[in-house]
């Protein structure tokens, strides 16, 4: 089968791979690159657990044609921590018990990261809107919203990873 060369930046690192025609970005990240942080959930844009950032904006990697990512800058959950130092969102998710099974967490955190990059001081309603494309079947959402708001507080006050 013919493969297509593809280059992009993943979590700040230049990345070059060969992809199958029609492959989605999630498959390429997980099976070709080996970044297992974005998850496969519904495959149709409903659950949001495959959310990654493309040039800083959230996109659903399971619905993104991999070949369309040539030259773009991608961010996944794997790129958030600096060594052993967790990103504030990762830390507040743990401290707020915002993860139970944890399957939605990569998408939730990436959606929240995109929000906080644009709006460091969001309202509760803005947080809810930012994760409106992400489904959690465990927590009832409240701990997740609290975690994002707490991360915003910490990031504004300079308590960073």
């Amino acid at each position: 089968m013919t493969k297509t060369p593809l280059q992009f930046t993943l979590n700040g690192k230049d990345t070059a791979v060969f992809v199958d025609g029609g492959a989605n970005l999630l498959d390429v990240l997980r099976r070709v690159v080996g970044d297992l942080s974005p998850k496969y959930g519904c495959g149709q844009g409903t659950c949001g657990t495959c959310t990654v950032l493309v040039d800083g904006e959230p996109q659903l990697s399971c619905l993104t044609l991999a070949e369309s990512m040539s030259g773009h800058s991608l961010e996944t959950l794997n790129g958030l921590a600096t060594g052993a130092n967790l990103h504030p969102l990762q830390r507040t998710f743990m401290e707020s018990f915002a993860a139970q099974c944890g399957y939605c967490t990569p998408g939730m955190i990436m959606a929240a990261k995109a929000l906080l990059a644009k709006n460091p001081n969001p309202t509760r309603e803005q947080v809810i809107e930012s994760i409106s494309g992400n489904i959690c079947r465990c927590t009832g959402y409240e701990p997740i919203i609290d975690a994002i708001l707490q991360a915003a507080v910490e990031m504004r006050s300079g308590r960073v990873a």
Partner: protein
Amino acid sequence: MITVDTYTNANEVSGAFGSDTAIMGGGTLLMGALNYGRQNITKIVRITDPVMKQIADAGDRITIGAGVTMSEVIRSRDLVFLAPVAQSVGGPAIRNMATLGGNLFAGTPYGDFTVALLALDGIVKYANGSEQDLEGFLASRGNRRDLVVSVSVKKPAANEFRYRKVVRVKPMGRSVLSIAARLPTSAGRIANPRVAFGAMGTTPLRAKAVESALDGAALDANGIQAALAAVSKEFQPPDDSLASGWYRNEIAPVYLRRLLLNEGGA
């Protein structure tokens, strides 16, 4: 095996159409279909022509490129009246991907943005330069082998355009139904209204009996009674996992009244 052909010039795409070819907008519908095993696609066509991304003000109308995403609509100063419609489509990630062009071809209960375009007298423009009114386009959707490059809509005056989407899950949910209306007034009466519904048929549809009932009526509780009576008989809506056709017909006048009178209750 699937191949991906990328065109930088929209005018060159017309020769690429085939029974096994899919034109990709934002990919939110096409890639989902591929994930679920759709087998009859061997070629995906991507178009990166900047013309597909243009938003152009042209007097009393405004032209929106087929590649403009819902997020780009929300950010556009020229499309403030359409921002609430785009905001009702999916969550932030979907809105960063989903395009006007894809929305034109979305099956029920998707395609809420097209409902608004229909109420705003949308005109589809093809890559070969020809045009077609959106109502005619929707009636024969998918039959024509030419690329849609843009849709132009009539710019509504202040408070002239209204839109509601009825969902079971907020803030993101698929449509139980959606309604868009352009309600010009003259001498205190509605004049030449356009009303469109989503999820009440296989494509977005104009509510022509409702439009007739509203034309010349006062925009108040008494004036809209004939329109509310007409809407329940206007469509033969589908049954799906969100609602039965019977239910959709029952609630259509409720939400039409709320839209027309600017009442609360989503």
